[in-house]
């Protein structure tokens, strides 16, 4: 079996990439993608730990998490489309009507 440490390493790398993207990027779609990375790194952890356990709880949890991510992506992209129609851009720095 592949050792658990490698899974955790993969998950950490994915999480860091996602976080880096979240902090640096301005494009709404890119941000959504980064959030997916964060969520999926957590899913990898869940599945990996579950493989070392006698039961399937972790994998069930991961499935829930994927469904949640899909719903979140649906809402998120819908908002982005609405924003694009309104402002003609999805660069979040330009969407500042409600900021000071």
């Amino acid at each position, binding site marked *: 079996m592949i050792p658990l440490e490698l899974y955790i390493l993969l998950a950490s790398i994915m999480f860091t990439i996602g*976080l880096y993207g*979240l*902090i*640096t990027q*301005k494009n709404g779609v890119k*941000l959504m993608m980064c959030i997916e990375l964060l969520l999926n790194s957590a899913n990898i952890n869940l599945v990996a730990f579950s493989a070392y356990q006698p039961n399937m709880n972790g994998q069930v949890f991961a499935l829930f998490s994927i469904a949640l991510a899909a719903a979140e992506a649906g809402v998120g992209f819908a908002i982005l489309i609405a924003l694009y129609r309104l402002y003609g851009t999805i660069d*979040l*720095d330009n969407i*500042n009507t*409600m*900021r*000071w």
Partner: protein
Amino acid sequence: MYSDLAYLIVGLPVLAFVLCLFFGWHLPRGGGFITVLATLGAFIISFGIFQEIYPGDIVHQSMHWFGDFNVGILIDPLSLIMLLMVSLVVTLIHIYGNGYMNGDPGAARYFAEAALFSAAMLGLVYADNLLQLFIFWELVGLCSYLLIGFWYRKPSAAAAAKKAFLTTRVGDVMFLAAIIVLYNNLVNLNITLNPGEYLLQFPVIYAHIAEIPPDQLTLIALGLLGGAVGKSGQFPLHVWLPDAMEGPTTVSAMIHAATMVTAGVFLVARMFPLFYAAPHGLTAVAAVGAFTALFAATMGLTAFDIKRVLAFSTVSQLGFMMAGLGVGAAVGAFAVGVSMFHLIGHSFFKALLFLCAGSVIHAVNTNDMREMGGVGKYMKWTMYTMLIGSLSLAGFPLFTGFFSKDEIIMIAYEYGIAINFLPYIFLILAAVLTAIYTFRMWFSVFTGKERSNYGKHESPWVMLGPLVILAIFAFAFGFAAQHDFYNYLDSNFEHYDMDFVELGIIGGHALIEEHGAAAEEGEHASAEEGHGAAAEGEGSHAIPLHIQLLPYIVALGGILIAALFYWDKVKKFDPSQVTGDKDPIRKMLLKGYYQHEIMTGWICEGIVYGTALISNTIDIKIVDGWLNWLSAWVMGFAGHVRKVQTGVVQNYVTALMLGIVVLVIAIAAISLAMEVGLI
């Protein structure tokens, strides 16, 4: 059986209030018939109780409310008489109101408020403790405010309502203070109460008056008198009563006859033993009453508004009642019977007079007597019923007002022999003036030439019916009820555990002890055979014939003077010859002794407004000042701090991550330190 239904005496009108308020809009005539039925029900129950307990019983029901207080019903002769009178008069006024308010868009509101007004007064008279009485007292004040300001779109009505509310409030505060002082004193006595007894219940108060320090008693009595002065329109708080004419005439009739101003007199009568025991308590009552009686009568002479004449006459007659109670210093509890007799009789003829005036105003469409004249040709029924009311008010022999007023003047004479003649002189003069202004009003409204082109039609029967019934009472109540009435009310305080002689000694009435004792004896001895004017005259056999005849002369003379001036058939003098428009005395009376000017001009604008300006400056500069400074500082600080909230998601994520990193490092450092053994 009826005594078990006693709570319904208040319950029915309250129910009518709720029904009229919520459903009156959908009912014909604003649901006025509900109010009539409710008060009629209250009257029937009161009458049933009267038949059950007359002559020697009382009804007392009570339950615990909270703390030291209870709610309860106490029906003794005093409150029973009031219950009967209030519910009867109010029912008649409501029947009349069905005609009078017909077509008014606010009729439902009127009947709802009128029902609540009746409920409040009925609750007031049979409350068994002072706190409950005070609650209903305030309710009466509230309802009078609502009803005087019934046509609230009219600025003068709104102002009159406000004036009535604020003026009576002055008295109410004193009343409340008196209750608090009385309560404190009763607590200090450490009374052991039997189950079912509470501190502010009247029987408990009566039983312990003698133990309260006399100076405290005087304080309480003056506070209670203050409340009564406010509510009953005595000098100097009478100013609201003439202005209260702004409401519908039926409201004036209710306020003046049954439901409002009598509350003050009733309060003094209810607490009479306390006033009796308080040194100078009754002297103050007599002084206020006698002065008001004359003072208001003089103003009644010059008023042009028919309702204002009646209002001043109410103030004056209330003065009579107060004086009647006050001179009780000389005759003891007998004064309560005399005064209450005048109160009941007065409510009949004053309700009658107001309803007649309303009938006239309804047809003529003006309040100003200068524009009337000769109305009697078109309104026969109103004219004759009002004649009965006027004769009664003027004290014409054999009418109700004669018996009651005569009796008050008689006991004032006894008071004069025993203590001081001033109340007697004031009352006699007031009685002359009463006869004059009453008939000035009657002659100038119903006789003579038409002085303007007014509406000429008689009122409908729904309005005339109550007039006729009230006229019967205003005429016949006096000689029909006189003897039994005094006996019944004299027995009122015998139901309670107290000794009037002892109270009189506390109150400093010892110098007239023989007189008081004679009156007491007379009461007991004549309990069976009656105690009327004649019996009283024999009993004290100190009243010479000319004094006994004086009330007759006064009443007839007053009417004669009025006729000589105002009745065109026998007119000998022209009023304008005696007093021109420029006459300073006439102007002063018309202006109500400039009391309005003094009150608003000097007291309100000078003292109150000046104080208000100073308070306002302190409020703005100091109280508000530091608060405004504080809030300005907070806002400035927040203006800087809020820049942290950029609204950019990336910044928040970065801050979050930095926080996590710091947390992780801290946890790592702590656990490392623990492993090494530093902590």
